[in-house]
C-alpha cells in the first residue's frame, strides 16, 4: 500500500492532497480507489463509528443490523442490558449470520451449515460436531466483536485496541455535541424508522458538508425557504449571527443563533399541528441551557468520520462508504421525550418532510454530490485544485459561551479541520492494533 510516496508517478502523495495553510484540496481524495482502500484501514478501522442508538434496542435480545464502514455488524442488547457489536460473519465459511434488519432473537444461527451463536457471539452449537469436528475447541471460534462505548445513548464501536475512550475521542467537540443532545432534561429517543438510500458520491462530500457547510444552505436550499409560508417577515439567513467550530480531532460544527427553530419547523411542515405552541420548547430549553445555547439553530455537526446531525430538525445519520464513489445513507430522527403529542407530531412531520430522501431539503444535496462525483471521472477535473479558504484567519473565542469558535457561521474552518485530521490518519502508516481474543473474552 502506498504511504507518503506518490500513489502513481503522475499524481501527488497524501501529504500534497490537502494544504491546511492554503486551504486547497486535490479532488483525488474523492475519487481514487487506492486511497479508498487505505481509508478503510487508516481512517475507519481507527475511528469510533456510530452504529445505532440505544432506543433501537429497548429490550434484551433486540438486535439492529448495522455497518462499520463496509463491515456488516449486529448490534445486540444482552441479557444484562449491556450492548455488544458483533461482526456479522460466521466463523465457519464467512456467511452473513443475521439477514434481517432488526428484531428479537435468542441467538444467531447461520443459514449455511447451522453453526449457532448466543447473543454474546459465543459459538454454542456445531451440527455433526461429534461425528466430523471432533477436535474443535468451540471457545476459539466465537464471532468477532468490536469495542463498544455508549455516549448519551449513541452506540459507538471500533476495531482499534488503542482507540482512546469515546469522551476523549470527542474531546473539544463534546461540548458542542452536548449542545445538541442536552437540550431536554428528559433526553431524546429515536422515532421509529430508518431511511436507507444510496448516493453515488464519495463519503467525504457528505461528512464535510455536515461538519462545516452552512454556506450551501443559502443557495442549494433556497427553494424550500422560498416556498415556505411563515408568520411574520421572511428572515434573511445571510445576515444571521452564529459561529463555527473546528475540533482538533476532525469533528466540526456550526450554527446560527435565532429564536426561529420551531417557527421554521412549522413552516417547513407546511402545516401547524393543532395544539402545538412553538414558543414552549424554546422556553424549556432556555431554562435548561441558558439563552445563547438554547438559541442555537440549524446546528450542523459531523463526529469524525461519518456520524452527522442537524439540530432544529433533529436528523441524525451515518454515511456508510461503499467504494470511493458511493455511500449508503442511514438516517433517523430524534424526538424530545418530554414533548407532548402535538409537539411530537410537529417534530415528526417537519423532519420527514425535509430530511428524508424524499424531503424538500435532502433531495437537493443528493443532486449536488452526484454531479460532482461524475465530473471527477475526468482526468483534468481530478487535477484541478479546489478552494476551501472560506473564513481563514478569523478570530476565535469571540463569544465566551462558544469556546474555540470563530464568530461567523459561513466559513470552512471545520472543513479544513476535517481534512487535516483525515490527512493525519492517512499519513500514519503504523498498523492498527487489533483487538486480541483476550480483550474479546474480557468483553464477555
Amino acid at each position, binding site marked *: 500500500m502506498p504511504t507518503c510516496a506518490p500513489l502513481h508517478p503522475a499524481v501527488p502523495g497524501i501529504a500534497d492532497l490537502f494544504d491546511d495553510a492554503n486551504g486547497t484540496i486535490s479532488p483525488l481524495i474523492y475519487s481514487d480507489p487506492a486511497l479508498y482502500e487505505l481509508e478503510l484501514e487508516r481512517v475507519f478501522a481507527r475511528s469510533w463509528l456510530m452504529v445505532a442508538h440505544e432506543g433501537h434496542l429497548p429490550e434484551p435480545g433486540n438486535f439492529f443490523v448495522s455497518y462499520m464502514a463496509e463491515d456488516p455488524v449486529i448490534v445486540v442488547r444482552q441479557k444484562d442490558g449491556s450492548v455488544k457489536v458483533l461482526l456479522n460473519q460466521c466463523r465457519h465459511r464467512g456467511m452473513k449470520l443475521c*439477514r434481517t434488519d432488526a428484531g428479537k432473537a435468542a441467538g444467531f444461527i447461520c443459514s449455511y451449515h447451522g453453526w449457532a451463536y448466543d447473543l454474546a457471539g459465543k459459538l454454542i452449537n456445531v451440527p455433526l460436531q461429534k461425528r466430523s469436528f471432533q477436535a474443535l475447541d468451540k471457545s476459539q471460534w466465537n464471532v468477532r466483536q468490536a469495542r463498544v462505548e455508549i455516549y448519551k445513548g449513541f452506540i459507538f464501536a471500533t476495531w482499534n485496541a488503542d482507540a482512546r475512550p469515546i469522551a476523549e475521542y470527542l474531546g473539544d467537540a463534546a461540548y458542542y455535541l452536548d449542545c445538541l443532545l442536552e437540550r431536554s432534561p428528559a433526553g431524546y429517543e429515536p422515532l421509529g424508522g430508518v431511511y436507507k438510500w444510496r448516493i453515488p458520491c464519495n463519503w467525504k462530500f457528505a461528512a464535510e458538508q455536515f461538519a462545516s457547510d452552512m454556506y450551501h444552505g443559502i443557495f442549494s436550499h433556497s427553494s424550500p425557504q422560498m416556498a415556505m409560508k411563515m408568520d411574520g417577515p421572511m428572515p434573511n439567513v445571510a445576515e444571521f449571527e452564529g459561529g463555527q467550530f473546528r475540533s482538533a480531532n476532525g469533528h466540526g460544527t456550526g450554527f446560527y443563533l435565532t429564536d426561529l427553530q420551531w417557527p421554521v419547523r412549522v413552516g417547513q411542515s407546511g402545516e401547524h399541528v393543532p395544539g402545538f405552541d412553538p414558543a414552549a420548547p424554546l422556553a424549556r430549553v432556555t431554562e435548561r441551557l441558558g439563552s445563547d445555547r438554547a438559541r442555537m439553530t440549524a446546528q450542523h455537526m459531523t463526529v469524525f468520520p461519518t456520524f452527522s446531525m442537524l439540530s432544529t430538525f433533529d436528523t441524525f445519520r451515518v454515511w456508510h462508504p461503499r467504494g470511493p464513489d458511493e455511500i449508503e445513507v442511514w438516517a433517523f430522527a430524534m424526538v424530545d421525550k418530554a414533548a407532548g403529542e402535538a409537539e411530537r407530531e410537529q417534530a415528526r412531520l417537519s423532519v420527514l418532510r425535509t430530511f428524508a430522501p424524499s424531503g424538500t431539503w435532502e433531495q437537493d444535496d443528493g443532486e449536488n454530490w452526484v454531479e460532482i462525483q461524475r465530473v471527477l471521472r475526468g482526468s483534468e477535473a481530478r487535477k484541478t485544485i479546489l478552494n476551501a479558504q472560506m473564513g481563514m484567519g478569523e478570530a476565535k473565542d469571540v463569544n465566551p459561551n462558544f469556546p474555540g469558535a470563530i464568530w461567523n457561521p459561513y466559513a470552512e474552518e471545520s472543513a479544513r479541520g476535517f481534512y487535516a485530521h483525515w490527512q493525519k490518519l492517512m499519513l500514519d502508516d503504523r498498523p492498527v492494533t487489533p483487538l486480541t481474543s483476550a480483550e474479546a473474552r474480557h468483553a464477555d
Partner: protein
Amino acid sequence: MQTRPPLELFHAARGLDRIVQQAIEQFLFYEAALLDAHSLHEWFALLADDIRYVMPIRTTRSVRDDAQQYSGPRDLAYFDESKDSIGLRIRRLYTGSAWSEEPRSRTRHFVSNIRIAPLEISGEYEATSAFLLYRNRAESQTDLFAGERIDTLRCIDSPAGFELVQRRVLIDQSTLLANNISFFF
C-alpha cells in the same frame, strides 16, 4: 401487502359496474399522465381537501415479523402528507431553484393490475394497483421503482369524476436504490 383477501376483492370486482371500473381506471391513467407531464397544479386539483398521502419505510424482517416490515403511523415515512404539505412541495418545485428537479426528471408512471372494491361510504372506492416508475435525469441517471398503491377515490361532480382521498404507496425496496425521491408516486 393486501388490504383484504384477494378472493373477496375478486367477488367485489365481479359485482362492480363496468362503467365505474372503466371510469376509475381512466382516472388513474389521467392522473399518471399529469404527473409525467409535470402538470402538478392540475394534479393537485385532483386531490381531496382531506387527502392523506403516505409512503412508509420498508424493512427486511423475518417471516415471523412480517407485520413489522412497514413503518407505522407514528414513525418516519418517505411521505406522510396533507393537502397543505403537498402544496408546499409543489410550490418548491416551481421556485426555479429546486435543483433535484431543475432540470426536470423524465418519468413514466406505469399503472396496472387495478382491482377495485366499493367502500361502505356511498361513492367511495378502494383502488389497488401495481406501479412501475421509470425515472431518467441529467445525462444518464436511471432509476426504477416498483410497488403497490392502495387508493381511496371519492366520486364527485367534476370533469375528472373522482378525487383522491387516500394513497398508500408500498415500495418494493428496503434500501432505496436512488439518490432521492423528487416526484410523486
